């Protein structure tokens, strides 16, 4: 199912991004192992979304490099990396067509695309909405649709940007269930969230970002019980002052 298994582990070395002089990513260092769910925490503007965009090659870093796989190959990410945006694209067509979208560039023939997309909809509980217009789904249903679309392409590494940001508790639980299932399927997951409870429920490890750097990268339990940095401690208590955020 997986297109390319050799992109993990992933090492990011000295990654910087300065679009207008200001460092949005400032010499970021990070290692991602071959499995698990990593939660990314950090204040608004600390560079979480930028990190995900850099990993999937949507921005050109000003300095540093990303090394893919055991051989540490550089360059652009290959197939197998997929990112879920906070406001996912919903084309003016059916739910089924929107889910099947990612299979088109892979050269999967149309009937097969529909069959696989339908099976995916069954899995995420949207099968009865297959023929509806995707734009008329609720926010939570759209998030699930986008998750299904990304999952269907069989990514090795899936980057999720606040997939539960505007969802109610049961929709959140539903998305979390799907995320766990995708992980069990063998996909490495990196997920940005502002929900600390979610981090403890889902995460194997936590990346805490501040000012465009990875401030801490530790197992979840340790992060909450014994945060290493002053920033992280204040962040967990909800008291991170403005001057320490960017």
């Amino acid at each position, binding site marked *: 199912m997986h297109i390319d298994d050799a992109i993990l582990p992933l090492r990011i070395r000295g990654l910087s991004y300065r679009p207008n002089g200001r460092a949005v990513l400032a010499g970021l260092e990070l290692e991602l192992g071959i499995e698990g769910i990593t939660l990314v925490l950090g204040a608004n503007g600390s560079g979480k979304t930028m990190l995900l*965009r850099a990993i*999937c090659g*949507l921005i050109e870093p000003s300095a540093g490099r990303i090394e893919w796989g055991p051989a540490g190959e550089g360059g652009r990410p290959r*197939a197998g990396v*997929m*990112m879920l*945006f906070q406001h*996912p*694209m919903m*084309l*003016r*067509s059916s739910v089924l067509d929107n889910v099947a*979208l*990612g299979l*088109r*560039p*892979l050269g999967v023939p149309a009937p097969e695309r529909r069959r696989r997309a339908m099976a995916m909809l069954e899995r995420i509980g949207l099968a009865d909405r297959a023929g509806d*217009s995707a*734009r*008329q789904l609720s926010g939570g249903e759209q998030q699930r649709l986008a998750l299904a*679309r990304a999952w269907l*392409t069989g990514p090795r590494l899936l980057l999720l940007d606040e997939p539960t940001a505007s969802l109610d508790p049961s929709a959140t639980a539903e998305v979390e269930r799907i995320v766990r299932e995708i992980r069990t399927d063998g996909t490495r997951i990196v997920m940005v969230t502002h929900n600390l409870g979610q981090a403890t429920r889902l995460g194997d490890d936590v990346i805490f970002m501040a000012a465009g750097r990875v401030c801490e990268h530790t197992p979840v339990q340790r992060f909450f019980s014994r945060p290493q940095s002053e920033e992280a401690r204040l962040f967990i208590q909800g008291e991170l002052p403005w001057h320490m955020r960017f």
Partner: protein
Amino acid sequence: MSAFAATFTDAVSLLVTFDHRVAEIVGLSLRVSGAAVVLGALIGLPLGACLAVARFPGKSVLTVLVNGLMGLPSVVVGVVVYLFLSRSGPLGEFGLLYTPPAMVVAQTLLVVPLMAAIARQVVDDAWQRYEEELRMLRFSWWRSVTTLLHDCRHSLLVALLAGLGRAMSEVGAVMIVGGNIDRATRVMTTAIALETSKGDLALAIALGIVLIFLILALNALAFGLRHWAIRRFG
């Protein structure tokens, strides 16, 4: 007053009796402008979408050019096409001047910039929003173009109807390259101009009523289509 009323009554009777002259002229108008819009859409819509999605040097120059050409005076297009199609022109050997195909060519040239400009605008808006996600899904730029054209199909159909309106109500280009020949290249606008100058106001008014009715109908169709699309697809 009574002369005016009489003319108007004559015009209406031409319409209700389905006068064959009126029918012939309206039919040719619809065929010529319809063909021009179909050709114009086939060229203009992909052109506009490519202009929105592709990256190449000179892109902004071309964009300004296309937008500017939208307001092209139809007589100018008429003269240019005339020069190309006239006996001594580069395409003179085909003998197209003063035939309906010549009128289709001229109107196509008028409609292409309109279609391209609208398509560029509509597709560009969608591209701004979806570019990263389409790249993420590994859509080639051409696949992105076709996907976005399909996604914007309702707005573009409205553009098509606008193009048909522009083509049907245009007079300068068809007059010059068609020559307004009776039963051959006479369309609504050229007939209205001629009949008015000849003093046959009844026919001119009858054709004017048909033209206005068609334009209104196109607009109503466009309006209905938009609402349907919004309700159906959000």
